[in-house]
């Protein structure tokens, strides 16, 4: 099952440093292939810290997430939570 969602990023640091690390960890903890990118751009592997931070997406930017696999819905729920939680309140789940 492939699902898709677009989320507006809340953490101040965007998808850098700690939020990126939590994001990638969440992808790796689920059974799904996830890709991410700007809505109008190429998608990259969401399981790659390098690829995700290289997107250079900041606070207020939209990011498109596409997930494929048994955990597709669950992983997108979790990623949406991470992307919409201010960094200060972020826990590692």
């Amino acid at each position: 099952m492939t699902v898709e969602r677009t989320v507006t990023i809340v953490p101040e640091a965007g998808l850098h440093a700690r939020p990126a690390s939590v994001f990638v960890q969440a992808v790796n903890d689920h059974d799904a292939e996830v890709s991410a990118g700007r809505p109008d751009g190429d998608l990259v592997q969401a399981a790659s810290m390098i690829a995700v931070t290289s997107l250079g997406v900041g606070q207020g930017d939209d990011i498109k997430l596409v997930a494929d696999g048994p955990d597709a819905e669950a992983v997108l729920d979790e990623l949406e939570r991470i992307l919409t939680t201010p960094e200060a309140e972020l826990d590692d789940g």
Partner: protein
Amino acid sequence: MAERTLDGTGATPRSGVGSVVWYGRDISLPDLEGEVDPDAEAERFADAVETARDELEAEREATAERVGEDEAAVFDAHIQFLEDPTIEDAVETSIGDGADAANAVDAAFGEHIEQFEGMDGRMAERADDLRDVRDRLLRLLTDGERVDLGDLPEGSVVLAERLTPSDTAQLDPERVAGFATVTGGRTSHAAIFARSLALPAVVGVGDALETVTDGDEVVVDGDSGQVLVGPDDAEREAAATGAGAAIVERSVETTDGRHVEVAANVGRPAELDPAAERGADGVGLYRTEFLFLDREASPSEDEQYEAVREALDTFPDGRVVVRTLDIGGDKRIPYLDLPEEENPFLGERGIRRSLAPDSDLFATQLRALLRAGADGAGDLAIMFPLVATVEELDAALDALDAAAADLDDRDAAAADPEVGVMIETPSAVFMADELAARVDFLSIGTNDLTQYVMAADRENERVGDLHDPTHPGVLRAIHRTVRAAHAEDAWVGMCGEMAGDPDLTELLVGLGLDELSMSAVTIPEVKTAVSDTEYSTASERADRARLAATRSEVHLTLDS
């Protein structure tokens, strides 16, 4: 005279002498000529990743124990990069195209390192992390012998292009005489680390450092910021004895017999042993914020108990002054919902938070302290930060009584500690007599006191001249506090940066301070300075200094 003198930036006011061990620049990639077996190379790569992960996990554990959870977190990022599928894909592709594993790794990382280097500060740090991971893999793939930083011969001076957090965490101050790096500044991770472990260090020497070779004898002078290559006997001796700052194990007094306690400011448990080794009589300021930072919820009573117990057991014959949680101002903790304030330094911070919004946290902390004080070897003292009024002190003392009563209900042993107040506000200075009448000691926090007395933000360079504790306004505040305390038979300490400046020791002893508490690094110098001071002379000079009208008059008095 040394054969050569190289200039850099001093990280600690200490010097050390030893022989050079270069770290981490021996990786040479194999030539691309000849046939390689792709399957074998893929397997070598997989093995290298696995070994690297084992190493990183071991180093993470060791760092968490020796330095702190905060510093250990860097290894998590490294593990994430190590297992990054982007890298893995790129390496596999290169190997498929005929590259050997080492060259494939070099190429896969190189592209991303360049990309991150071009980005802003935070991302540039990622480039450093990637370089770290790449070099680790390359070493494993090229059978490069890596110098084991955790197992250097005694008297080694480590030279490196740069030292990463994972590198510095392995340096053993018992064996390493110091380090110097090509890159880095006073606030780089390596420099900060050197200060907290009192390790002589010079950073930012530049490419000239590369002319120094393994086995050369060097002096690393963190005070002048110089590296002396091939020092002469006098230079060698001066460095080895740290310019007269031999560690003084005993407690010290002035030449005319006035005892002055010299204690350490400690910000986390890893600093306890270095403080004891540098001859601290005890801990004059045990900051408890480390227990609350970088976590998702407040620490349990038992966790706090353990941390304080550890400090008390490190100083079985000494006193450990624990400051209750001091947040607000520039210090924030995510799960404590601090208000947005126009003037956070004049807002809800220190004891103000402990009494109202965080009173449950305060009660837990006080119970933990009293229990640790009952069980630990040393003597516990409890100190309340940013007290401005007698009402606040009374409320804090009530909370302490309540905590003792709670423990009594539980049949848990509770200490009967000395209790004190930090003097950081002008109000506390004016009310020092009333405060001292209610407690055992006062401790002057000169950083905040100077800021509030001079109305000058210490972070603001434009008013940096005003933020100087040797202004007569601040000296008179210190004198007034000491006089008020002694009239009430309370002792007075000082735990700001001023206390750790050996050039000011005579002045502070002369002003009547009973205890000076500082970063471990300057304890030997200050102990020596106390031993060289004659109290009667110091007292006369301190009177002249505080009665001066201007800072330049103060300095004339000090220099005379």
